[in-house]
């Protein structure tokens, strides 16, 4: 019985390690931290695997991973403390626009990675979850713990910001 559980975990959850590692790398932006957090998340996933009630394993694993990332960052160091306010950071906020421009003018001009790195984590995670993991809005909402409407607006804003940056660097 538990043998089956272990086999099932090996077959369905372990193969998702690249997805988990990718999200961790984008969120933590540090190779070693990402590795530690992926291990921790997997351990947690395994511990609670028996209570996993089916559904999308990937969304489930990424939910755990994301929580581990935020816990890690909060507890370990203030590597990236970017307060994010939906109102303050509205699309037309000129201060934010200036930040985008600065980002492009930095040495890594035009590098998408460099620009991404300067986005708040909330933007990075929806981008990774949607563009790379191709999760539905509903699953992204589950993973990030916000309503579907917020997923929709964050994703639109994240894309809009990237669009401006790509356009300027083109």
């Amino acid at each position: 019985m538990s043998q089956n559980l272990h086999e099932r975990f090996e077959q369905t959850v372990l193969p998702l390690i690249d997805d988990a590692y990718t999200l961790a790398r984008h969120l933590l932006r540090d190779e070693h931290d990402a590795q530690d957090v992926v291990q921790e998340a997997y351990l947690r996933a395994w511990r609670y695997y028996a209570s996993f009630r089916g559904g999308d394993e990937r969304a489930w694993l990424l939910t755990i991973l994301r929580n581990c990332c935020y816990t890690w960052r909060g507890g370990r160091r203030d590597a990236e403390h970017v307060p994010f306010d939906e109102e303050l950071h509205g699309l037309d906020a000129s201060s934010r626009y200036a930040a985008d421009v600065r980002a492009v003018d930095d040495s890594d001009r035009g590098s998408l990675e460099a620009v991404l790195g300067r986005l708040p984590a909330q933007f990075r995670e929806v981008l990774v979850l949607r563009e790379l993991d191709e999760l539905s809005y509903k699953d992204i909402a589950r993973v990030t713990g916000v309503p579907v409407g917020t997923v929709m607006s964050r994703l639109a804003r994240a894309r809009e910001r990237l669009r401006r940056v790509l356009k300027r660097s083109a």
Partner: protein
Amino acid sequence: MSQALHSTHEALSAYVDGELTPDRAREVAEHLTTCMQCSAEYETLLATIAALRANLERYQAPDVLRARVRTAIAATPSISEPAARPEGGASRRRRPWVWQGGIAAALLVSAALGSGITLLASRGRTSTPDVAADVLASHVRSLMPDHLTDVRSSDQHNVKPWFNGRLDYSPNVPRLEEQGFPLVGGRVDYVGGRPVAVVVYSRRQHLINVFSWPTRLGDAPLGVTATNGYNMIHWRSRGVERWVVSDLNASELRSFTELLASS
């Protein structure tokens, strides 16, 4: 209606993702056929998304991470169905001997229950080989570039406080430099599914990792093992389990351990 559609990046973005309701999607589609402004925006959005998908980095988990994850999982019990076995069932998978071992095992279990030893403790008892594997894996990993220490210092007054707030206990960090074992630093690692303190010393070009964590198990004398060219010494005393791992020769590692144990 078209006015409402005009302004929303959100609607277009969700339209691309197929996340609008069928009615709303039809509205947007119709609007796009007639509105130049929105259709231009739509195309820009498609191009942005294509650029994102092409350029967002996909990372591949390194083999060492896969190995670490497997090791960690193998060493850890999964918590069984909460409804069926609320708390104590967690270690069932790890204790096949309970069901095979008959009276001796039953006695051990009842002794464990009687003395109030918790789940954690019973895990510790049975998982020694896995803990050893974790400790060894951690030691090997620590030898890779940038993995050795989180806090690098030869001063114990820097290393010891560094653990504050990172762990639920404070490891002993004695100064052994005069005896030929300078302090290198410390880090937090994972062994048996919990964060543990690792204090690093050196001897000539050899590194010594000292793992420690609190335990509720009773004292245990020094146990020495050698695996893949590494010497490992472990013991428990006064509520702390310690593992010393190095490729240093066994006799020098033994001296180091005795210094450590007596400090």
